């Protein structure tokens, strides 16, 4: 079950962002063209001067004339080479300025995105503090374990510390992770039961949790435990709990269709663009994205271009599942 904290354990594989470094190599071909041009002109200059002197010598021209001939022939080539040198210098200045802008931009990205695991964990701590309570504590444990697991797999994959971490040790660690996760899953409904939650108080507890993933996790765990306690095969219990889907009454649906300006919302909802949009909604909500940020993101994504009704429905979905986000100017 993914929750808001899963997003914080995401590692952006740099191979997926190869474009990040493309700018560092870009522009060298332009420089190479200038350098090749200069080399070619130098060769032609030498060839032209040699040919002129050879031809003059063949006609018996005096040796004293050779210096003047060389200079007359070579001067235009030298001017052309100087022009290329100036062009290259100008271009390099432009490249340097662009490189500086790029570096500055990357610095801003690095400031916005933690570039180390420690920084990511600090960001996690902020998220945990925001969540608070039992759900926060549970998420804290899961996050630590997820980071541990990822770290071990990463180090093992890179061969760093591989000698210290055998397959069996890794398995033991992962089994330990699974056990702790199981305990946490069991502890959550137990804490709810201990607090004397009935249906009303559970509803109240759920109402206080705006994060859908947290609500879904708690309810599913309660349902599973209830099923197991009632003697149902755990395998079946775990298989029969479907992902929560909020039922929307027909009235609001019709109103929504009218608002969007379509007769039937089903066609849009079945479209690939809408499905992709819902995926984006999930990720956006998990990451704590504001409605404004989400709007900007959707409007910037070319796959939603020229689909205003689909976009409107996606934004409605975001707003419906994140009721505290108000439209902002």
């Amino acid at each position, binding site marked *: *079950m*993914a929750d808001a*904290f*899963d*997003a*914080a354990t*995401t*590692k*952006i*594989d*740099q191979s997926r962002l190869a*474009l990040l470094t*493309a*700018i560092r190599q*870009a*522009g060298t071909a*332009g420089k190479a*063209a*200038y350098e090749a*041009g200069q080399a070619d*002109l130098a060769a*032609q200059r030498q060839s*032209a001067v040699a*040919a002129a002197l050879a031809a*003059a010598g063949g*006609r018996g*021209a005096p040796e004293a*004339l050779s210096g*003047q*001939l060389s200079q*007359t*022939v070579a001067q*235009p080539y030298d*001017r*052309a080479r100087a*022009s*290329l040198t100036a*062009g290259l210098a100008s*271009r390099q200045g432009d*490249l340097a300025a662009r490189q500086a802008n*790029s570096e500055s*931009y990357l610095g801003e*990205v*690095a400031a916005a*995105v*933690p*570039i180390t695991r420690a920084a*990511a964990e600090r*960001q996690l701590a902020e998220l945990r503090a925001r969540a608070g309570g039992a759900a926060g504590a549970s998420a804290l444990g899961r996050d630590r374990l997820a980071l541990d697991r990822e770290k071990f797999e990463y180090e093992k994959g890179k061969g760093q510390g591989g000698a210290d971490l055998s397959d069996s040790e890794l398995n033991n660690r992962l089994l330990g992770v699974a056990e702790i996760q199981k305990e946490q899953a069991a502890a959550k409904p137990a804490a709810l039961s201990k607090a004397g939650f009935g249906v009303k108080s559970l509803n109240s507890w759920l109402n206080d949790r705006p994060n859908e993933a947290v609500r879904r996790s708690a309810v599913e765990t309660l349902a599973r435990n209830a099923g197991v306690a009632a003697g149902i095969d755990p395998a079946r219990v775990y298989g029969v709990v479907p992902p929560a889907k909020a039922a929307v009454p027909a009235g609001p649906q019709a109103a929504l269709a009218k608002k969007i300006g379509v007769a039937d919302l089903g066609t849009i909802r079945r479209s690939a663009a809408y499905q*992709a*949009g819902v*995926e*984006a909604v*999930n*990720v956006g909500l*998990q*990451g*704590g994205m504001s409605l404004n940020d989400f709007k900007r993101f959707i409007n910037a994504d*070319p*796959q939603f271009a020229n689909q205003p009704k689909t976009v409107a429905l996606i934004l409605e979905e975001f707003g419906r599942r994140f009721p505290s986000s108000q439209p902002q100017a």
Partner: protein
Amino acid sequence: MPLNPLAANPAYLAFLREAGIGDAEAATDATTRTEAIGAELARRLPRIAEGGVREREQISGGFESRGLLRSGQHELSLARQRGDEGTAVGDTMGAGVDQIAELQAALARRRAEAQRRAAEGALRFAPGAYLEMG
């Protein structure tokens, strides 16, 4: 529990695909146009050289008809013609090189934009993610 929502996010994958395809198309386009400029230079430079040979023949013919074939003036006229030829070669090559450099600069600008979009896309799709640089 999916550890990497980005990898399972079709919108983000589509975004990266689009960026990758766009970059490949731009790079191919720049290569094609660079090669076209190279081919144009390969056509024009020999023509300049051939024209130079003809001009020198005319210059020498003129001096020969006046009985001045072995004069210093004849040699200096030929040298000036070779210099003019050098100017033409330099201008032609300079224009071609400038065009190639501008193509590469445009590609660099496009890549910088793609880079910005990729980084911001990652931020948008997974605000809690972290980058591993280097």
